[in-house]
């Protein structure tokens, strides 16, 4: 069951990108997502594409994994592409199919928008493929640290995230077990009308919730027994190191943004 999930699929490897500080990676992606919208002509898109491919190359992640990540959104991309091709009326007319006319501007726009999607998905999957989820949590906790001053419970939120991550496989296993137990008693999850199927999920969800609550309670007791008192006076086992390569990556990103500003039309 776990194998099918792309979200949070971390591929351990030894690369420059894997070794980066998760804070740097998060900032990088945040800025990159913004500057993607600066690109508006072939030169800028080529530049962005080359940059992304360079990052992929550095990460040693096989292109196959990134393409896999694309699959769920492929239909969306195709749909927006076709929408642009058929409904944008700019530039010269290139073809006419029945009542639909296709203009040059439409095709160009469709290609650009699809490229934008590709780039967004490539870069964000690169984050989850090269960073263990727990490091992403650490990075977020550290980046949002200043919000503690305005009483945002940053530590508690991060702990909640990491506990959820830790319990995903446990609860998936449990779902599987409950499903089999209910199937053994004649429950049918895979046929019938849609309302029937929705109803069939109830005997799955209720035991799952009951057990999740029980787990939560036991976990809370165990945490207390091990001295958990909230964020105060707590030290961290995982430390984040901002190194030269992180600064380099940020500088490179700065240079890219500047280039995009100059080259965009």
């Amino acid at each position, binding site marked *: 069951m776990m194998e099918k999930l792309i979200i949070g699929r971390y591929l351990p490897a030894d690369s420059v990108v894997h070794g980066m500080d998760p804070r740097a990676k998060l900032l990088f992606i945040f800025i990159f997502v913004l500057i993607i919208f600066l690109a508006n002509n072939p030169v800028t898109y080529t530049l962005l594409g080359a940059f992304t491919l360079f990052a992929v190359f550095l990460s040693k992640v096989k292109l196959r994994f990134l393409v896999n990540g694309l699959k769920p959104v492929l239909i969306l991309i195709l749909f927006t592409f076709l929408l642009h091709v058929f409904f944008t009326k700019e530039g010269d007319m290139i073809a006419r199919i029945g009542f639909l006319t296709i203009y040059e501007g439409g095709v160009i726009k469709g290609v650009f928008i699809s490229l934008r999607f590709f780039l967004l998905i490539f870069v964000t999957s690169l984050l989850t493929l090269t960073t263990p989820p727990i490091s992403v949590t650490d990075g977020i906790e550290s980046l949002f640290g200043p919000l503690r001053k305005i009483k945002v419970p940053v530590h508690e939120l991060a702990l909640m995230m990491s506990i959820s991550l830790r319990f995903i496989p446990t609860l998936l296993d449990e779902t599987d077990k409950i499903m089999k137990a209910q199937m053994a008693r004649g429950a049918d999850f895979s046929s019938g009308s849609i309302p029937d199927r929705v109803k069939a999920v109830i005997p799955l969800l209720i035991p799952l919730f009951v057990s999740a609550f*029980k787990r939560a309670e036991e976990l809370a007791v*165990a945490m207390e027994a091990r*001295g958990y008192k909230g964020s105060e006076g707590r*030290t961290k*086992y995982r430390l984040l190191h901002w190194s030269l390569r992180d600064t380099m990556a940020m500088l490179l990103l700065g240079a890219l943004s500047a280039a995009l500003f100059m080259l965009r039309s």
Partner: protein
Amino acid sequence: MSEKVISIKGVSFQYPEQETFALREVSFDVYKGEWLAVVGHNGSGKSTLAKMLNGLHYPSQGTVSIGGYKLTEEHVWSIRGKLGMVFQNPDNQFVGTTVQDDVAFGLENNGVEHGVMQERVFASLEKVGMTAFLNQEPHHLSGGQKQRVAIAGVIALRPDIILLDEATSMLDPLGREEVMNTVRELNEKEGLTVISITHDLEEAAKADRVIVLNEGRLYIEGTPADIFQLDRELVQLGLGVPFAVQMSQLLADAGLKLSQRHFNEEELVNELWTLNFEK
């Protein structure tokens, strides 16, 4: 005997909104370095006792003192530093996403410095033989391995006492043995005081001293040999007498001269096949 580490005097406890007492005037001491088993069937009050020793409940009457601290809200965190607890369900006490994160959790809570923390995580995992699993995620571990990680998490805090609250009851026989061997080693080599709360008399047979609880009262206290003398009385208390003990009893009844009553099968088998050698 040696120094007292826990002293329980006349403790009673009643859950709110319940008429009967879960514990009634229970008194006993625990000595440094010993292995004490607390046995009793479900509802005998043994889980309540476990929770009380960790400050999750406070006595309604009587006093509990652990490592020189009286159990009050004021001292509860000092007591939790002295007494570490391993719970029943291996999954529901694993907080970290990986083995090393989990062992470090207790250290993080206590504000231990990073350098010291790393040393202690490695040292504790070494003691339970789990160093090879440093970066392993919990769902790739067996129940016995998870419990060993939980033990590592407890000993990383350097407590004087480790309390096992039915810690082996959800494990298969192999995992049970794995965990009991780890605890035995810590007890013998590190001098850690062990309190194991269980309904499994086979586990209790390994202890130095056994306390039997029944309906919230201390029923009897003695060495495993003393306790197993009770035989049918134990069955009445809802405790299963281990197979080896039953078997040696039956063999003795049948006229076979055994040197002693055996608590585990291996000992019994060893005596049986060497029985006729000397003669």
